[in-house]
């Protein structure tokens, strides 16, 4: 009897507390939505925005500077920056935030994530609704149409233009007798590259991790052979066993011919290759990476850094040189302050003060006005502009969302690790990859239906 009373008391108490919690959250929502109408940046209404991004220290500081310029101009607006250093961690956190409805008002998203989110419905706001607020006239319209428009909705604006490049330490390569041309193929890449280790046994030509070997070597090589996307939009794999195997054989040659540091030594820095002590000590010839990472990698490139396009297979069907937005800024559709967010985006991308603050920390700026402003102020690294200018005329096929799926990526990367450690042959690796990818694609297709 007594026991039952206690149980009943617990139930009453819990439900009362739960109810109280529900009620309080309802009322706070109401407050938000009622106050969102009305113009804040010209009035004194207090506006709080959250803005999240990832990247290196430079980018973080530059973004904070640009935010400060805005909040100095509009003291009633406060913007809290949510910064994550590591892109992978940022991606995981963002997905969870979006699923739980707690994502920030303004979000930096990667170019490969946007199509996936676009497919899921109206997670991000359509910016064409704010065309009176956001001036897009100084963007390259083709570029926007190609990457940012989904079902006639403008879901994001590019924060920078990015291209994969070979960034190198020209002094080191020169002294090792390496000859770099802009029209090279992967064979030349290896025959020239191995001179570095031959000249000095503690130095290597290329600093790369398993992810880079997949994304910037294997994928590019295979796409150059096939002229197709790795996976078509109908979930069909765009290469055959022989082509996959050739790609793995190329990676194997990197290790056999000492183009790269042995896997046992380099794997410890797999997550952040720019932290490899050999990179810091400028004992690497260069790195295959996105131009947007130039600032991150520059310390290892010596006094005379230079860049070249990635190698292209002779007779390639597609150069596979990818020019794409570095990332997008999007507005969370659940934000109670969409209009205010749009105003901030307009400032961030079009205001000269903001452009000068952001510099080239997200690769080459997306607008002509920003590029001119930075060039005049000598604030842009000429090398960043060179990367984009080098790549643009030879631009290749861009990959679709499915080809950059994380599960496919992870499967390929762990197979590549086996090549790195010499535990499998290119042929076995190709079989493994095809069977795993087929499994994953079947699963993905099932889940979409």
């Amino acid at each position, binding site marked *: 009897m*007594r026991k039952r*009373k*206690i149980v009943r*008391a*617990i139930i009453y*108490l*819990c439900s009362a*507390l*739960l109810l109280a919690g529900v009620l309080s959250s309802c009322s706070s929502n109401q407050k938000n939505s009622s106050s969102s109408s009305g113009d804040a940046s010209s009035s004194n209404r207090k506006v709080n925005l959250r803005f999240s991004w990832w990247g290196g220290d430079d980018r973080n500081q530059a973004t904070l500077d640009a935010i400060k310029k805005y909040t100095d101009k509009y003291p009633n607006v406060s913007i809290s920056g949510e910064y994550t250093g590591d892109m*992978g961690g940022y991606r*995981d956190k963002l*997905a*969870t935030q*979006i*699923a739980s409805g707690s994502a920030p008002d303004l979000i930096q998203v990667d170019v490969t994530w946007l199509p*996936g989110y676009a*497919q*899921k419905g109206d997670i991000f706001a359509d910016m064409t609704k704010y065309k009176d607020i956001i001036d897009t006239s100084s963007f390259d319209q083709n570029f926007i149409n190609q990457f940012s428009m989904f079902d006639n909705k403008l879901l994001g604006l590019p924060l920078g233009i990015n291209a994969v490049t070979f960034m190198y330490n020209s002094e080191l390569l020169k002294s090792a007798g390496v000859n770099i041309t802009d029209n090279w193929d992967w064979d030349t890449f290896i025959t020239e590259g191995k001179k570095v280790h031959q000249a000095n046994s503690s130095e290597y030509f290329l600093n790369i991790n*398993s992810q880079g070997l997949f994304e910037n070597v294997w994928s590019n090589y295979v796409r150059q052979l096939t002229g197709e996307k790795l996976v078509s939009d109908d979930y069909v794999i765009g290469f055959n066993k022989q082509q996959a195997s050739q790609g793995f054989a190329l990676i194997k040659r990197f290790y056999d011919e000492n183009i790269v540091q042995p*896997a*046992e*030594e*380099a*794997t*410890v*820095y*797999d*997550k952040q290759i720019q932290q490899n*002590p050999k990179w810091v000590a400028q004992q690497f010839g260069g790195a295959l990476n996105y131009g947007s990472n130039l600032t991150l990698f520059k310390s290892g490139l010596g006094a005379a850094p230079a860049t070249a396009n990635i190698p292209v297979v002779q007779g390639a069907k597609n150069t596979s040189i990818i020019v794409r937005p570095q990332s997008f800024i999007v507005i969370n559709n659940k934000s109670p302050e969409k209009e205010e967010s749009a105003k901030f985006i307009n400032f961030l991308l079009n205001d000269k003060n903001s452009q000068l603050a952001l510099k080239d920390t997200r690769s080459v700026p997306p607008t002509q006005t920003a590029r001119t402003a930075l060039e005049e102020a000598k604030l842009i690294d000429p090398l960043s502009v060179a990367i984009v200018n080098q790549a643009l005329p030879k631009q290749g096929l861009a990959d679709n969302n499915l080809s950059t799926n*994380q*599960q496919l990526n*992870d499967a390929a990367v*762990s197979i590549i*690790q*086996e090549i*790195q*450690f010499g*535990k499998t042959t290119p042929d076995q690796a190709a079989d493994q990859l095809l069977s795993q990818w087929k*499994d994953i694609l079947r699963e993905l297709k*099932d*889940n*979409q239906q």
Partner: protein
Amino acid sequence: MKDDLRALLYLSPWVLGFLVFQFYPLIASLGYSFTNLNLMGTTRFIGFKNYITMFTRDPDFYQSLKVTAVYVLFSVPFKLIFALFVAVLLNMKIRGVNFFRTIYYIPSILGGSVAVSILWRILFAKDGIVNRAIAYLHIPAVDWLGSPNIAIYTLGLIIVWQFGSPMVLFLAGLKQIPSSFYEAALVDGASRPRMFFFITLPMLTPILFFNLIMQMISAFQEFTSAFVVTNGGPMKSTYLYGMKLYSEGFSHFNMGYASALSWVLFIIIFILTIVIFKTSNNWVYYEDGGNM
């Protein structure tokens, strides 16, 4: 009755917290494990498909089980022996022993943090401090974290460093052993090692039992060191079960599958705990016969 109500009122924050943040997620995850819940797609009930996939079509599942088994078998005994060793040292009557007791506990407070994991990475890199130190002894450099055969043991060493909490329990256990036992043994001319193995160790078995269970559970759930120090590599040789769970859930967003994985882990830990409990009758000695 009034007192009961008041007690409940005081308990309610915990009860509520437990129901909302522990009990509900626990039950929900069981439900999710039978769906294809995915943050990017539509959710459907799929019955036992996740469990079937796990056991029939997922080589990473077996790899992570294998790695975790090696990790638990290596790190738990090693950690307990080390904790006991330090506890015996700190039980001696030496000057400033309280100072040392504090110092030796500090690693356990720092242990799980990311910064310390990065420190381990620097220490055990090929050209790291450990290899430089052993170079003085003319031992060739070891790929502590770079070799697929060694990395998991290196991770095991890292966890041994956090011996603080079992050590404190051992220390408390040591204090409980009546000194009359040792005095009697001394009179009979017993040697120190003999006293340790025939008095100290049997008297400590209840603590050892408790530590074994707790450390086993936490070793099965280990995640941070594998994620930060090795990222599961090289070649998935440190791909602990926690890493597998994380990458399914938070990299591939297969939350349904990740829930199923966590329930399998729960069942494994549950069975092993029962096994240890069953065997405990044979090796755990309670002075009062275990009738508490």
